[in-house]
Every structure is written in structure tokens, then in C-alpha cells.
């Protein structure tokens, strides 16, 4: 339990209204987007300035109180759960877009800006920020930096870290540190910015972000292809990538999701088909036309049963909406859905899909999967029920097997969600032990009292 004097000092720093202590409010900051993780903080603070963040951290460091930085809490790794209680430092009120510079193609924002609000502001000026985690309606830009988030667009445009030009970070002792700048090129010492990008709130609190932007691609085209065989769908993805075209997005949907889509929006999809690919090409109108033609060709040659090209933007939007609706349907399909985030090398995708089939057969769990096939990042989902203890444990074991399968193919534990609490028990297997140890040492230098998001990423006994 937190000492009373710490809370009264927090009130002095932030004012009464920005310090939440009622049980009802604490409960609201005890969870994130994961299924089962939850822990109550002792207090929630909502700073509006970097100076406040600095004073909060100084106070916490002096009193050795855990601080869990949090944006909108849409992450799916357990990353923003205050697992050791203490302070939740929520950045949702630091939500100003400070600058959008069309000439430099840069923007500077506060961490609490919601990604969709940022996208809307950019679109008004014909600008584009590609990283598109599918929580864009809720997630904050600060959170996407801390999680180094990705999404469908990343197959062509890369993940969040490719866009971070400058950061302002408050360190555990309250020091306000500036990193990077506004230039695209910057070769000044170590890439310390990358240390904080993807740090999951364990090294510092991000308070200002400068991002690289792109002009909005003037044209785009969406294609849809249906396959009888799942592995054939996976192979088609590899064939497209090997042909020299890089589509903006390649999304993969299995039979389960395909059937839900057909139920919700009947459009004559063959419900016996095992896989569906949604592909988008973007760029200049002429390039898009040529790329789309090439993609359709390859899809047909790879054995697609049916290929559709959206005739206009409205139809394309319908296809993409259908894809997110299908994703939602997966989550509504069972009491508890364990969804994961593994990524494998693209040329191993078909093999990985076969392995998933074997695991499903052996464990008896139905496994649905959809994902960003273009970058080998799949979200296999196991349908179970958390209230049935024995079944839930078996489901978790099956998920363990999925991780093992991905790792054995040279894949990774997490493509875009991060480790947090959810995947830390697998970390040892997925990382070089020296690298893991180095990570822990870095944490010790930057946060000697272990106040920043303690208990995350690696398992505790190693500290």
C-alpha cells in the first residue's frame, strides 16, 4: 500500500482532479486488452505537462514506488497492467498535436494523441503515417512507440521504429532527456531512441514524439483471392513477394473467418474455401494499375479459385471493413479467445500453417487464424473458456506449442504486440541469454530502483 504522504504530494504536483484514488477509478486502470491479466494500482495520475511527469517520477523514485506508464490501455500483452500496484501514469490528457510540417514531412505530438485523430489531421493535409495497429481508434501514439507497434501496412512501409525521428523521454530519476531531432538522417552516437522505442515503459516515460511522414499515395487498388487449400494461400503470398512487387497490405483469413464474413455480408464467397487473401497495391495510378495486374496474374497461377478486384474505393473500403468485422467475429466466437502474435519468415508461412493444423489435431482445440501474411505475422486464436480451469490450462499449453513451432522455423515470439506479461515465460527460449542479460543490465543503469513498469518483459527471478 502506498503511503498517504506520497498521494498528498502527487495532489500537490497535479491538482486534486488529476489524481484518482477511488476504488472505482483504480479498477478502471487495472486491465488492458488482454483476457485475464488484471491488477489494481494504488493511485492513477493524469499529468498534462512534461514537468509534472518529471516531478511524479522523481517522487516515485525517492520513495521506490512502482510506476506503470499507460496510454489508452488497448495493448494486448499485459504491458500496461500495474502488476505491482503503485502509480499508473496515464498520458491520455497530454493529447496535443504540436506541429505538422508538410515541407519537412514531419509531425511532433504529445504521447496521448489518439492514432486515429492523428491520421485524420494528417489526411487533411494529404499526409500519411503508415504504422496502423488495428487498435488505431483507441491507442495513443505514445503507446505505439513504447510497443513499437505494427499493422497491415507494415509489409511495405515497415513498423513504428522506422518512423521515429526524435523523442523526449523522462528518466526514472525525473531528468527530461531529448533524443534525435527532426532530420531524417542523424548519425550522432548510439541510436538511443531505438532503446526507448519498444521499451514497453520499462526505461522511461515518452513525453514528446517527432515522426517521419509520407505523402498520401494518390491511388490504391484492393484485390481478393480465395483458395481451396490453406497452404496454397500461404504459398501465393510467398510467390507475390518473390515476384518483385511489394503490396501495401497482404491479409490472410481462414475458413472460419471467411464464413463469418459471408454470414454478415453475403457476397457469394465459396464457404468451403479454406483461405482468403486481401491484397492492396498503392502508389501512383500507373504503378498501381501495373502492380495489380501482376498480382492478379500470380494469384491465378498459384491456384486461386476466384480473384476479385474492387471496382472502386467504396468497394475496397467494404472489403477492408469486412476484414475487421471478421476479426471481431473471431473474438465473439467463444467465451475466451486466446489470440497470439507470432511471426515467421515469409518463405516458411505455408510450412507454419501446416504445423498449426497438426497442433490443432493433436490438442483437439480449434485454431482460427488470420494475420498480416505479407510479413509472416499471424494471429492464431484458440477458442476456450477461462472459467473452465483444466481446459484453459490445456489451451495455454497448446499456445505454447504454437510458439515452439514458430521459433523452430526461425520465427519470433511477437510480431507487433510486445512481450509484457503475456509472453515472458517464453522469452528465455526466444532470446540469446547474453542479449537477455544485457537488456536487464541496461534496465539497471537507467532505472536502478526498478520503479518503471516492474515485472514486465522478462521473468522476475532473473533480476
Amino acid at each position: 500500500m502506498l503511503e498517504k504522504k506520497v498521494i498528498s504530494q502527487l495532489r500537490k504536483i497535479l491538482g486534486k482532479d488529476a489524481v484518482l484514488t477511488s476504488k472505482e477509478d483504480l479498477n478502471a486502470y487495472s486491465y488492458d486488452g488482454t483476457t485475464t491479466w488484471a491488477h489494481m494500482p494504488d493511485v492513477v495520475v493524469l499529468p498534462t505537462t512534461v514537468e509534472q511527469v518529471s516531478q511524479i517520477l522523481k517522487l516515485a523514485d525517492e520513495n521506490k514506488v512502482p510506476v506503470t506508464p499507460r496510454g489508452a490501455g488497448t495493448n494486448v500483452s499485459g504491458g500496461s497492467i500495474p502488476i505491482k500496484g503503485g502509480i499508473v501514469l496515464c498520458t491520455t490528457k497530454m493529447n496535443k498535436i504540436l506541429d505538422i510540417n508538410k515541407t519537412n514531412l514531419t509531425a511532433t505530438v504529445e504521447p496521448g494523441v489518439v492514432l486515429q485523430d492523428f491520421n485524420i489531421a494528417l489526411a487533411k493535409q494529404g499526409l500519411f503515417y503508415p504504422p496502423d495497429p488495428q487498435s488505431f481508434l483507441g491507442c495513443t501514439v505514445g503507446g505505439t512507440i513504447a510497443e513499437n507497434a505494427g499493422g497491415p501496412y507494415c509489409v511495405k512501409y515497415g513498423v513504428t521504429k522506422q518512423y521515429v525521428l526524435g523523442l523526449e523521454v523522462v528518466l526514472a530519476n525525473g531528468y527530461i532527456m531529448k533524443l534525435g531531432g527532426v532530420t531524417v538522417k542523424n548519425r550522432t552516437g548510439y541510436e538511443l531512441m531505438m532503446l526507448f522505442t519498444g521499451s514497453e515503459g520499462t526505461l522511461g516515460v515518452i513525453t514528446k514524439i517527432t515522426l517521419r511522414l509520407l505523402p498520401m499515395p494518390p491511388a490504391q487498388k484492393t484485390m481478393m483471392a480465395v483458395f481451396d487449400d490453406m497452404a496454397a494461400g500461404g504459398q501465393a503470398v510467398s510467390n507475390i513477394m518473390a515476384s518483385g512487387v511489394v503490396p501495401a497490405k497482404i491479409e490472410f483469413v481462414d475458413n472460419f473467418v471467411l464464413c463469418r464474413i459471408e454470414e454478415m455480408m453475403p457476397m457469394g464467397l465459396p464457404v468451403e474455401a479454406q483461405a482468403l487473401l486481401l491484397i492492396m497495391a498503392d502508389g501512383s495510378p500507373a504503378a498501381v494499375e501495373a502492380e495489380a495486374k501482376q498480382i492478379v496474374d500470380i494469384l491465378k497461377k498459384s491456384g486461386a479459385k476466384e480473384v476479385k478486384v474492387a471496382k472502386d474505393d467504396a468497394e475496397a473500403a467494404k472489403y477492408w471493413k469486412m476484414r475487421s468485422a471478421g476479426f471481431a467475429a473471431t473474438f465473439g466466437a467463444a467465451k475466451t479467445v486466446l489470440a497470439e502474435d507470432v511471426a515467421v519468415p515469409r518463405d516458411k508461412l505455408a510450412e507454419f500453417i501446416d504445423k498449426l493444423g497438426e497442433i490443432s489435431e493433436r490438442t483437439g482445440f480449434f485454431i482460427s487464424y488470420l494475420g498480416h501474411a505479407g510479413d509472416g505475422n499471424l494471429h492464431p486464436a484458440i477458442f476456450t473458456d477461462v472459467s473452465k480451469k483444466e481446459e484453459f490450462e490445456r489451451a495455454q499449453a497448446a499456445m505454447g506449442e504454437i510458439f515452439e513451432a514458430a521459433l523452430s522455423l526461425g520465427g519470433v515470439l511477437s510480431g507487433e504486440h510486445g512481450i509484457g506479461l503475456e509472453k515472458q515465460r517464453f522469452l528465455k527460449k526466444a532470446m540469446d541469454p547474453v542479449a537477455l542479460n544485457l537488456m536487464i543490465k541496461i534496465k539497471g543503469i537507467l532505472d536502478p530502483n526498478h520503479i518503471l513498469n516492474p515485472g514486465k518483459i522478462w521473468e522476475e527471478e532473473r533480476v
Partner: protein
Amino acid sequence: MAKTSQKRYEQIKRFENDLSQCMKCGFCTFWCPVYQEEHIESSVARGKNMMIRGLLAGELDYTKEYAERLNQCTLCMACTTNCPAKANIPNVIVAARADAVKARGLKFPYNIVYRWLLPRRRLFGWVVRFASWFQGIFLPRTEGSIRHLSMFLSALGKGRNIPQIAPRFLRQMVPVVNKPPKGVETKMRVGYFSGCMTDFVLPELGKHIIDFLNRNGVEVIVPKEQGCCGAPVFLGAGDFDTGRKMADTNVKAFEGLDYVISDCATCTSALKDYAKFLADTRQRKRAYAKFAEKVKDISEFLVDVLKLPPSAYQPSAEVKGKKVTWHDPCHLSRHLGITAQPRQIIKSIPDIEYLEMPNADRCCGMAGTFSIYYYDLSKQIADKKVAAIKSTGADIVVSSCPGCEIQLIDSLLRNKLPVKVMHIMELIK
């Protein structure tokens, strides 16, 4: 013990499916008008749903803060409409309000107003009349109207622009049976649900609607026994017992009629919600469900049932040549799915220009009781609506919910924007 807890969460348990449907993705934060002002997790559907789960798990209790958080929702349904899992959290919130009232009781003065005054229509009318004498003394007279007495009392202290009480109520102005004029064939016979607002404040609107229906071959019955729809009582305050009495009164008042027409989106939606929230017996369930089918919003009735030709919609003198925009009441658009019909009517009217406002279906922040408890928050939400209206350059903003209209009048005056607020039926001659 198990039995008491069952009783303690009686209503919530009925919506357990909605409660468990939320997968905590947090997408509702983007759509929630309250969260967009507060940026605090307990404002939004996910946070409230988790709070109610916490109550059921025994981690939270019926505290003042709990009730506070429950009340801090406009029930606008934007969360549900945009929810990937279609979790209807407003259902859970209404149910939780009901359980909280059972556990905690209603606080003064709401207990008097909701339990005692609103169900007694004639008495309520007299109290409103009495209050109106003071209105002229304490407040500048403005256009528009007041919806509930409680709102009036509350607004006295907060400087809200409150419209005037009519010198004669609708029930004093029109007979029970209103037949089409001579020479017009009677095609249909319907009941007219007047609602507190039209009855006490906008009787001219009610009269106008009855005349319009008469001229188009509809005989209109205005039962004297009808009362308040009960929205502030059972949806706002969670007093299901009183709400049930009001529901029974209204269902009985309109017995034997094929349709019940209302000009208020909130009333229409509340009348249809009896079956969902208030049916405690099989008998009531059947009666309320049958009643719900008969209830029609005025624009829905004109377009879908009466199927009037476009030529039936001629502009009233004061709107000719004006630019008009439409505000979707939450209770009409998201609760009942009625968005096309009012637009079709407005677009049929010659000599006016229709302009669609951005986010026309975004909540105006009124939400009855909500705006009493949280007037400042309500004003902040309304200011976004005012900005949307301003961006269209319209002369008139039209809606179909007296609650929204009060909010719009108040907010436009506060923002000094010279835009007139009208009910959709006031556009038509």
C-alpha cells in the same frame, strides 16, 4: 448468501450476455462523447462494464462513486454501434442503475419527482404551471421549453436558457377524437402520444401534427389517460418499479389502436424499451412487446406506413428559402435505426436547401438526467455539436426530439450563433 446476491444483481444478471461480450479492446473510447471530453477510463463503456463486473465479483460495492460513474453516460449507443463485438453496454448500465436504486434508494429531490410527481400527469401539469409563474420572475424568458420539472429546478441554479411553459396545455386544447375534415376520406385511426414536452410546452406543435395527420386522412385519438413515457424514471434514474406503473398506464391508454405516434425520439424509444427493461411477468412481456410494435416515430409513420407523396410536404412560410440541417437524435438514429426517413422528408420540401452536417448523429449531450447531474460536461459535448452546425452555414437546425431541441437552443444561445432550432414537423405547412 447466494440468493441475496442474486437479488442484489437481479437486473444486471438479465443482461449478462452483454456484460461478458466486451473483450476490452477499447475502441469505444473513440466514439464515446463523454470519454472524448474527460479522457478517463471510467467514462467509457469498457470502464463502466469492468466496474459492473467488479461489483459482481465482490470487489466493488454500491458506493457514491459507483453511482456517479453509472450516471455519467448519455446512453447514446455510439459505443455499441461501433463495437466490433456489438456489446450493448448501455443495456448493462441501465440495468445496473436499477439494481443500484434497489440497493441505495433514490436521493432527494429525485425520489419526489420520479416516484410521486411524474406518474401523476394532471398534478405534474399543475406543478409545471406553478413553476412557470416563477420562471418569468427569476429567469429571462427565452424560446423553447423545459422537459422535466427536475430539470427546471436544477437549471434554475445553473443559468441554463429555459424555454417557456405554454399558457394552455395540449390536453386542454384538443379533444380526444380528432377526425379528418369533411371531404377527406379516413384511411387510418391512430393514437397520438403527446409526451410531457409537447403537452406542456409545445402544444402548438402537437396541434399542428394532429391537423397535418387529419388533412392526410388519419383520425387521431389523444387519450387523456396517457402519461409521461417514463424515460427519466426507468432509463435515467433506474427506478423500474415506478417505470412499470407508467408503462402499464400508457399501454392501457392506447389499447385497441393500431398505431401510437410520437413526435419525440426519446419517448418513442422509451415506449419501445418497456419490453426490454420492465417486463417482469410473462403477461407484461407480451403486452409490452405488442405495444412496442405499434409505436412509431412521426417521420417513420409518414414515410413507411402512410407513404405520403413528396408533394404532401410543403414548406411553412417562415422556412421558405432557408438553409436547413438535420441533427439525428441518438434515440432515433442508433436506438431505432431511423435516419433515412427524416432526411427524405426534409429533402422533399421545395424551396429549402438541405445541408448535411458532419457527424450529424453525434450525441448533443442532453440525455435528460445526465445534463442535470453534469451540466458542465453536457455543455462541452454540446459545443462540438454547435461547431458542426456552424460549419454547415445553415439557418435552421431541425431535429425530432424536444430534449435535443432544448439542448440545441441553450447551446446556440450560449455560443451566440443565430441559428433557429425547429422540430421537423414545424418545417411543414
